[in-house]
């Protein structure tokens, strides 16, 4: 098979933030600079027309990756290619910039309350000069509104006249108005109620089929991610710990953290399965643990895990999965790996 250029490629992507206290306080307290490594060496590629999802708990760096991908942050380190072009260069060219858009989590904060919906949606069209003439622009806005399941007449209204789900549809229509090929979606359904979440997920899947869109989907909800992804990356403390095809990840999760995440989801089928809570909490990314960042919470940790940081390598048994875990590499995860599938008789989770 001929390898086509992926829509998006990140190689050793990193972003650090300086969280030092002000100079005088630092000097008085005799402490040095402090760096928060929000994203620390993340690599992935997203083939055209597919969806890559990044999951993880708060603070794992997934939203920072989203912002790096659309160029809202500059990377501290690493190379980012958008359809084969360096992202920095692509961002400088309007006709490349037009090809990527972002959908944000909070549809209450991401729409200007003083603008009519038709102006919100037409803004990218005007900014990129895609369609000349007011009448033609308004026809296109009407089309976009119908495409996301709203009425063309809704263009006359203001955002406050819509519910959360409808506002998220407006955000999607705005993102689509520049005919993008790549959408970065940062928790697009987590502010929505479950019945509305289903509407938006169905809409996004439908649009992907019809328009051939490529998605980077950021979420903390594993059940949502399963419905929409081709591949899934699990992040922990600024790094990818596992990256696998969606079905493989759920059928055979390999990293102890991925397994713990799945175990921790409440059991809606009430099979009587006992949830096994992950002990402890996510450590501070300012002073991450040595070696594997998950080792203080990991049931399989040994001395090597405390000292040496594991690399992301293909997993034994499921080579399409890459996983950063010494236990998996050494085959120490065997028993736990087999029982996982039997325990996964679950339907889950948040409304």
């Amino acid at each position, binding site marked *: 098979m001929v390898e086509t250029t992926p829509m998006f490629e990140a190689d050793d992507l990193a972003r650090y933030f300086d969280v030092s206290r002000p100079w005088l306080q630092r000097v008085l307290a005799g402490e040095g600079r402090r760096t928060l490594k929000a994203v620390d060496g993340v690599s992935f590629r997203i083939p055209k027309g597919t969806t890559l999802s990044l999951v993880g708990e708060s603070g794992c760096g997934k939203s920072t990756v989203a912002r790096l991908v659309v160029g809202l942050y500059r990377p501290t380190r690493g190379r980012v290619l958008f359809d084969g072009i360096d992202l920095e260069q692509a961002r400088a060219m309007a006709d490349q910039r037009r090809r990527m858009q972002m959908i944000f989590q909070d549809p209450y904060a991401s729409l200007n309350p003083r603008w009519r919906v038709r102006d919100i949606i037409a803004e990218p069209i005007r900014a990129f000069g895609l369609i000349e003439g007011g009448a033609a622009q308004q026809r296109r806005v009407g089309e976009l509104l119908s495409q996301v399941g709203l009425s063309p007449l809704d263009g006359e209204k203001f955002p406050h006249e819509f519910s959360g789900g409808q506002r998220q549809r407006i955000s999607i229509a705005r993102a689509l108005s520049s005919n993008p090929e790549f959408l970065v979606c940062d928790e697009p359904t987590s502010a929505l109620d479950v*019945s509305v979440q289903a509407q938006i997920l169905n809409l996004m899947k439908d649009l992907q089929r019809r328009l051939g869109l490529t998605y980077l989907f950021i979420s903390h*909800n594993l059940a949502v991610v*399963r419905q929409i992804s081709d591949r899934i990356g699990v992040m922990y403390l600024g790094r990818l710990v596992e990256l696998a095809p969606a079905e493989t990840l759920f059928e055979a999760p390999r990293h102890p953290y991925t397994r713990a995440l799945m175990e921790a989801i*409440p059991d*809606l*089928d*009430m099979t009587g399965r006992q949830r096994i809570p992950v002990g402890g909490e996510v450590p501070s990314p300012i002073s991450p643990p040595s070696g594997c960042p998950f080792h203080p919470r990991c049931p399989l940790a040994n001395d090597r895990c405390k000292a040496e940081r594991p690399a992301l390598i293909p997993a034994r048994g499921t080579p399409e999965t890459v996983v950063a875990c010494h236990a998996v590499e050494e085959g120490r995860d065997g028993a736990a790996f087999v029982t996982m599938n039997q325990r996964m008789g679950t339907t889950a*989770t948040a*409304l």
Partner: protein
Amino acid sequence: MAPILEVRNLRVEFPTRRGTLVALDDVSFDIAPGEVLGVVGESGAGKSMTGAAIIGLLEPPGRIASGQVLLAGKRIDNLGYEQMRRIRGREIGAIFQDPLTTLNPLYTVGRQLVETIQTHLGLNDAEARRRAIGWLEMVGIPAASQRVDSYPHEFSGGMRQRVVIALALCAEPKLIVADEPTTALDVSIQAQVIALLKGLARDKGTAMMLVTHDMGVIAETADRVAVMYAGRIAEIGPVREVVKHPKHPYSVGLMASIPPLDRRVEHLAQIDGAMPRLSAIPPGCAFNPRCPEVFGRCRVERPDLLDAGATRAACWLYDPASEKRAPEAMRHG
């Protein structure tokens, strides 16, 4: 056993310039000692409002227009602010979503616990401090005897929520109202906090009202569940029945739209449309414009909770006098 909490035909109104909005309409339920009642629904359905009305913390101009709230058989909905303040903490513990807004950032957690314990139980300093440390241990805070002198900002989110739980429980209330206690927490921490809450309610015989939009949390924690829609209870019954065999068409749609974790589905079940605003609740059943089973009288008459097998559902499908009955699949689940 006599219920600890009884809510009878509760109606909450918000007078506005454009007329009176009815936020809660004819809400009735009770909670027995040691029982956890889950309250679910979409945002704006009135679940948090119900909790706020019970603990006497409705935001003005909201007010209880009619109905009663009884705690251990005594009415509390007509008490004054000072009387209600004494009941909150002593007899009703409240846990809110955001632990940071519940804790006072200027006092150590120990001082806040000691103050609550002394106010309600009248113990001396040493005894109250001993109890405070005991509660911190009970909610799983490591090195409690040292942490008792820490300030809230020195705790992580999960640990802070544990402190809030300790604070709600330390006066040994009869009832706990927990409004989205785990929503601000990550899923791995959620499981720890839920196990804790459930264990404490069971061991102490405390009644608990658990408000959340997370069905998974409800399925795991609650004994019974009430599904709310547009300010009314749409369905109430044992948790297993409501989750696995819902009877109200709204509960059916709600359960079906939860994305499954164990498989991928091409098209998720969805309920079209959105919940009506309080100012535009349709006549008849509030769910009728979105309901796949809607028929004549749904658009005219408002249904009360009717027997629907193992649960009670506010739906005309379950009235023997209706011209239409529930489809076979829905009646038997």
